[in-house]
């Protein structure tokens, strides 16, 4: 079965006067999203997760690697295929206010994709706009309003509705909850969940809130300094992480319980995030990794399978690594059979 979205060995490099030797934002990253599947992409800011998503829709230019949508290389689409691709893949941005034109009403913004793709007549488009508003739980009266008169959560609903206008199969969501207030985040997360179930959409969902990603995603890919270091089902990866970095991410999630939180404060990740302009040799996480040994400095880790479908790029999981067996338990306690 062909994956709906197949990103293969993608590299995105930025060059510029201030960037010295250039910045490799995405470094040989590969991932797939199946039809109707939610893939969560997590990592710290600056790890390249947004760049990867933007490259998929052509907002950044890949340096090398291929992006296939429905089996076709998106850089070699014919005019018609390109239009079909544009209609079939939508993007939800982090900042809903900026992603809506200040000179359009909500109704006009929702109509825009239909006009761009020459869909329907004036009245059928109007009907579709009302349908879209209803889909995201918004009253029809919003159609006449300006985005600036709506709250953050309301705007994000509108941006989601616009992304759905052309009945896409894949929604790429670039931290759509980050700019929202706590209580609104949960509302919008529910909108995403409901729509995914109702329209059997596939999501490439980028987030930094692991709790949200855990609930939303079927599978998770963890990115660190341009590389994907761990992939697997969201339960596997986030409940029993195999990579020390994922472990640290999971352990840093703030939990509103004073007892737990005060205890955890002692196990925080030490050291600064290395600069992507000058990443460390070998494993890029080694400068912050509590379990790093010499090999991590010399050799870039290969990806090992911990469980079926659960891959991790860490020397600890190399079956030939004698030190791994001892240290593995510090990351992922419990008996494991290695594949």
């Amino acid at each position, binding site marked *: 079965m062909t994956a709906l979205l197949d990103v293969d060995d993608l590299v995105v490099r930025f060059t510029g006067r201030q960037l010295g030797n250039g910045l490799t934002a995405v470094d040989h990253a590969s991932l797939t999203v199946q039809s109707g599947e939610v893939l969560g992409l997590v990592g*710290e*800011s600056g790890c390249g997760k947004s760049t990867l998503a933007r490259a998929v829709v052509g907002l950044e230019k890949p340096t090398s690697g291929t992006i296939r949508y429905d089996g076709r290389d998106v850089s070699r689409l014919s005019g018609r295929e390109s239009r079909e691709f544009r209609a079939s893949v939508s993007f939800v941005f982090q900042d809903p206010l900026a992603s809506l034109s200040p000179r359009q009403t909500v109704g006009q913004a929702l109509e825009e994709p239909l006009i761009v793709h020459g869909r329907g007549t004036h009245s059928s488009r109007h009907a579709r706009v009302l349908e879209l508003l209803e889909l995201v739980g918004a009253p029809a009266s919003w159609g006449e309003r300006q985005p600036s008169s709506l*709250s953050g*959560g*309301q705007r994000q609903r509108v941006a989601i509705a616009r992304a759905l206008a052309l009945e896409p199969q894949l929604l790429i969501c670039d931290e759509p909850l980050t700019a929202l*207030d*706590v*209580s*609104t*985040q*949960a*509302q919008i*997360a*529910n909108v995403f*969940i*409901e729509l995914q179930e109702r329209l059997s959409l596939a999501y490439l969902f980028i987030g*930094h*809130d*692991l*709790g*949200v990603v*855990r*609930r*939303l995603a079927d599978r998770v890919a963890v990115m660190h300094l341009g590389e994907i270091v761990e992939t697997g089902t969201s339960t596997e990866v*986030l*409940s029993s992480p195999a990579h020390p970095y994922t472990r*640290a*991410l*999971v*352990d*840093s*999630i*703030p*939990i*509103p*319980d*004073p*007892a*737990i*939180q*005060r205890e*955890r*404060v*002692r196990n*925080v*990740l*030490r050291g*600064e*995030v290395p*600069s992507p302009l000058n990443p460390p040799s070998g494993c890029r996480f080694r400068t912050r990794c509590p379990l790093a040994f010499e090999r991590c400095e010399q050799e870039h880790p290969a990806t090992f399978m911990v469980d079926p479908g659960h891959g991790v790029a860490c020397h600890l999981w190399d079956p030939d690594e004698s030190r791994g067996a001892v240290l593995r338990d510090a990351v992922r306690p419990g008996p494991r059979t290695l594949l």
Partner: protein
Amino acid sequence: MTADAPVLTVRGLGVSFPGADGTVRAVDGIDFEVHPGEVLAIVGESGSGKTVSMMSLLQLLPPGVRYDTTGSAVFDGVELVGADRMTLREIRGRRISVVFQGALGAFNPVRKIGPQIAEMARFGAGYGKQESVRRAIELLGLVGLSDPDRRYRQYPHELSGGMRQRALIAVALAAEPDVLIADEPTTALDVTVQAQIVELLASLVARLGMATIIISHDLGVVAGIADRVAVMYAGKIVEFGTAEEVLLSPRHPYTRGLLDAIAGIDDDGRAFRALPGSMPAPGERGAGCSFAPRCSFVRDKCLVEVPPLQAPPIGFGPLGASGTASAASAPGSAEVACWIYDRNEVRS
């Protein structure tokens, strides 16, 4: 908590702005106090008035906005509300210092980090020229920056977000303040860095013993550091108590809702228990409780009368699932502004 006299006592603090249609009351009468060595967290969503209330104390609201502060805020015997420029200059940045939100904007981008800290040490804490440089380097080390000598000579843009936040805390500490106000000290930082900053603040409070007020929207971050928590909603404090009381056994339906909306890593199920609606803007608050339109336990009285913030009647414990107070095991220090905890109803 300590038995010392409070270093800052705030009573009935209100802040209003001239709005499009009449005066907008951003902060609507709040009371609290902080003791030396104590961490008070003020929690709320954007627009709840948490930042405005703190900044108005030091008259640090953006210039050009005409605002009106009422009530009283006594710091070490000095009334801050309505204080003149000279009095405030003595206190602001020296005895009460602020870690501003957005670490990049708070530094002068064309000056090195070190001298900016040394300056605060000189003018805030009265160090000499040579001493202040030494003190600045010491502070950079204290906030956990590696190689403080080199950091002293770096420009703000050369530091990462987390390092800048640390340097900013060093600036705030340079004057050896009695009260430290940190406005969203972890917002916009990654979770890994957030945890580091929370740890740093907690250890600094323990070592230096100043009273600290943390303004945050993140209950998880608050849980790691606060002794007492005040939850603000629409310009008012709706719940006040120790961190354990507020976060583990909340009384106000809003606090309950906020906690429910947070997705833990081990939670099962998919949908979130989201609070419906959004917080009313200051101009759009109706009569009665501001939370009533979003509250699933709303009663008739909530729509007419504003509930006062008061200790719940004896025997009234945390909010139960059915919207009534559960039985209290032991009397606590919590206060709540909700009609579910109405004294009169106890009698009837």
